[in-house]
């Protein structure tokens, strides 16, 4: 099991969710990923996609500088 960090701060295109999807494609089942995003929309659209595909949301928090830290696990 590995843990990855994808730093998508300041990414408008392809954007945090596309970065997350691209990275999850090359991960193994059980691996976790922490997405860093400055796009408030990530707090909603990442969980939506994770749920739709059937992966696992671990937690979501925003730090004092406004960066979202979204942790997910590849489940299938």
């Amino acid at each position: 099991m590995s843990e990855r960090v994808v730093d998508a701060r300041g990414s408008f295109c392809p954007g945090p969710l596309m970065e997350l999807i691209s990275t999850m494609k090359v991960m193994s089942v059980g691996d976790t990923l922490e997405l860093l995003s400055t796009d408030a929309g990530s707090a909603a659209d990442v969980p939506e996609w994770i749920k739709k595909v059937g992966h696992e949301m671990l937690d979501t928090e925003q730090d004092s500088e406004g960066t979202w830290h979204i942790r997910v696990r590849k489940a299938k």
Partner: protein
Amino acid sequence: MRVLVIGGGMGGTIFANLLARRIQQEMKTGKAQITMLSASHDHVYQPGWLYVAMGRATPDELVREQESLLESGIEFHVDPVEEFHLADNHVKCKSGKVHEYDIIVISTGSRPVPENIPGLKENSINCYTAENAVEFFKQLSDFKGGRIAVTVGLPHKCPMIPLELTFAMHDFIKDRGLLDKTEFYYTYPIGRVHSLENVAKWAAPEFDRMGIKYETLFNMKEVDGKNAEVLSEEGAAVKYDLLVAVPPHKGQEVIEKNGLGENGWIPTNRASLHMEGEHGQNVIILGDTTNLPISKAGSTAHFEAETAAENVAATIKIGRPVRSYDGKVFCFIEAGKDRATYAMFDYQNPPQPKAPNGAVHAFKMAYNKLYWASARGLL
């Protein structure tokens, strides 16, 4: 100071030419030299493949001899690198020749890998090589009606191409009088029709106006050619009569083989453009080869190359770099055969695309010709 450029695409070429112009004196006196290693004699203007796919250009119009684009004094060899020895500041080429350097710039680009999605390569068309763009035109020309589905893999080069292809095909089919026999079905990986929110806000109503149907949160998993349908990771299935793909991409194999970056993307500092990690202090990464969360596009490579050339010239002249890359990207968006708009953004500022018009399209058509001046570092 020996500067070694790996890759003769947009990033490497613009970098080398801009740098050569800035350090003319140092090159004349032998204090600096620039060497470029490429896998090909040719330089290809890849954004032109869209026009080949629509029958509005032929592949030969998009190619120039690489050496003819380079400033005099730049040493050029067609000899692809096979081994990077970054700890020892040298590379080894296919010919066996070793090139030493003080600064290396790696700009080897990306490649489509439709074979990574089961069934995609054999059941779809795309416009990511000259041959594929010609085949695209042939199949689109032969199309007599039915459903044209667009499917998008991640990551991919040229983030505007899913929209541009769809708009262009719409006008192509309309001009052939087949619009009433054709259904366009556009799919996209995230929950809107484009990654850029403001572009999506503009494009979705355009799709509605043109009668183009779309489905979002659709990441292709495999293509079932027998039943002519694309299956998604989200559990959906989309039927097609003609399947148009934006295939997933990877970086070059040589990058992976040398352990420089997973999938061929090299970890890169977003401001300095230096390779992250050990031995990265004299290694600069440009264009698609970076792992930066920004568009894999020619304009990204162009603006990165400008920053890198200024910084390397300053390093040679005054001993340190002078500026950071700010994430600038400028992408034209063709919105059909005769209208276009554009998206310009950086790390801090999202794009604010305007309504498409004929003037921006005309400028894009002019830029397609002006590109060769841009590659020379003149524009």
